[in-house]
C-alpha cells in the first residue's frame, strides 16, 4: 500500500490515499453513514416526541415510537475528550491518530478524528467544525477541524 494519510493534514490527502477503513453500514445505522457519504452530518429525531438520538437505533428510547425523521446537524461542536494514539498501529492510519469525542451543538456526541491541528495543541473545549474525508470503498466519514480564531460565530 502507499503511505497512509497524515492526521492533521488537509482533507485532500485522505481523498488521494483512501486508506481509511470503510464504515460498517447496516439497516440500523445507514441513516448516519448515508448522509456522511453526501457530506452531511445527521442524527435521528423521533417523529413523535422530537428526541434526537445517536448512535442510531430503530426505536425511540423515550416514547418507543418507530417513526423517525432525519435531523440535519450544524456540524459545529467542541472537543469533549481526546486521545493521541501511538500504539498499536494499523496500516490504514498514520500515527499518532488524533482520536476525539465531539459534543455537537445539538447535544449529540460522536467519536471522530481531529484534523488541521498539532497533537500538543489539542484542548478539551476547543471549538470545531465538521468536514468529510474519504475511506476505502468510496465512503466518506465526518472529522473535525478547529474553528480558526475569529471564525467562531454564535448560532
Amino acid at each position, binding site marked *: 500500500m502507499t503511505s497512509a494519510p497524515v492526521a492533521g493534514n488537509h482533507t485532500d490527502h485522505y481523498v488521494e490515499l483512501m486508506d*481509511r477503513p470503510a464504515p460498517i453500514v447496516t439497516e440500523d445505522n445507514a441513516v448516519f453513514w448515508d448522509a456522511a457519504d453526501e457530506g452531511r452530518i445527521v442524527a435521528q429525531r423521533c417523529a413523535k416526541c422530537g428526541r434526537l438520538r445517536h448512535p442510531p437505533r430503530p426505536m425511540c428510547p423515550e416514547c418507543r415510537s418507530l417513526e423517525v425523521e432525519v435531523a440535519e446537524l450544524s456540524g459545529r461542536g467542541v472537543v*469533549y475528550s481526546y486521545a493521541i*494514539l*501511538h500504539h498499536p498501529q*494499523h496500516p490504514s*492510519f498514520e500515527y499518532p491518530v488524533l482520536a476525539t*469525542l465531539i459534543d455537537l451543538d445539538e447535544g449529540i456526541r460522536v*467519536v*471522530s478524528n481531529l484534523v488541521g491541528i498539532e497533537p500538543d495543541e489539542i484542548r*478539551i473545549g476547543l471549538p470545531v467544525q465538521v468536514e468529510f474525508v474519504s475511506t476505502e470503498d468510496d465512503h466518506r466519514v465526518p472529522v473535525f477541524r478547529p474553528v480558526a480564531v475569529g471564525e467562531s460565530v454564535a448560532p
Partner: protein
Amino acid sequence: MSSPAFGGQAAIAGIGQTEFSRRAGRSELQLACESITAALADAGLEPADVDGLVSYTVDPVEETELVRSVGFPEIVYSSRVPYGGGGSMGVLLHAASAVASGAADVVVGYRGIRARSGASRFGGAKTSPSPTSGHSGTTAMQWCTPFGVLTPASWMALNSTRYMYEFGVTSEDIGRAVVQLRAYAATNPNAWGYERPITLEEHQESRWIAEPCIHLLDCCQETDGSVAVVVTSAERAADLAAKPVHIAAASGAGLFEAEIATDHYRPDLSVMDGSVALAARLFDRFEIARDDIDTAMIYDAFSPILLMQLEALGFCGPGEAKDFIADGNLALDGALPCNTNGGLIGEGYIHGLNLVLEATRQLRGTAVNQVPDARVVLVTASRTGAVLTTD
C-alpha cells in the same frame, strides 16, 4: 429492599488454573479442560458432580467440546455473560443464581484465552468484519473503527482523558497505582511481573500507548491461560475438600447508553457511573458496609480505570483516588489492599476471572500477599461485581 434469595446461599468450592504465559502452545479448549479439572480436584468433586457451565460470550471454548473432553455426563444449565471483561463477575452472578434457584447443583465458571499468542492478539489494532462479530456488546465499536479507535486502550483512553481533565489527575498519579500493582506482582510466582517491580520513573519512561493517559506500563498483560471456579450451595460446600468462600452478593449494573469498555455516549465520562450503580446494588441492596471490605480486586485492564472505579465504588470521593493511592492505601498496610496478586496489570489478563481466584485465596488465607484475617473481599469489573466472605 430485600436481598436477592441467593445472597449467602452459594459458595465457591474450588478454584483451578493453568500456568499463565505468553505462549501456551495448546488450544483454549485444552487450557479450559486443565483449569476445570484442577478446580474440581481442589473442591474434591468429579466431573459427574457438575451439571452447570458458565462462561463469557466471547470465550472460544464451546460447551459441546468441553463436555466431550472433560466427560461431563449431563449438563442441565448453561449460560454465558456478555460485556467482555466488564461482565467477568457475571460468571459468579449466573452460577450463584443457578445454584440458589435449584436450576443446577454444581456450576463451573471458566475462561480460556490466548490473549497473547492467539490468532487475534487481544490488544491489537484490528477492524471487524461486522458490528456484531464479537457477540458481546461490540456493536458500539462500529462508531470507532473508521477513526482508528481500534483497541481497548484507545476506547478507554477517551474516557480517561476526560477524567484526568476534570480532576487534574496526572500520568504520575496513575503511575503510582501501577507501581503498587507491580510490587504485589513481584512477590507472586504466578505473576507475569514476578521479581520485576518497577519505579515511577520507569512507568513514566515507558512509551505512550494513548496520550495523555496510558503508557505501556499502564496496560494489563495480554496472557495465555485459563482459570475456573466451582460454585455450589453453601451447604454442600461446607462438606467439601476446600474451605468454602461464600458469595454474599453478586450483581450487574448496566445503565442506559452503557457500552463495553467505553460508555462514550453517557453524559459524564469523568465518572464510571456504571460502577456507582454497581456499588449501590452490592453495598446498599445487600446491606454490606464499605468499611467491612478487607481487600478489593478491581478490574484493571488499564490503570486509569482503577482510579475511576475506586471513586465510583465509594472508597474515596470524586477526584480523590490519586491522593488515596499516593497515601499508600492500596498496600497491604493501607485502608484498602487492592489487587494483591498484582492485578491484571501485574499478574496477567485472564479477562478478569483470575481476580476471583485471588479473592478466594485471600479468604482461604493462602494468598502470597495475604491480608491478615481477610473475611470480606470485593471483586468487581466495572459493571459486574461480587462480595465474597468467609461466613
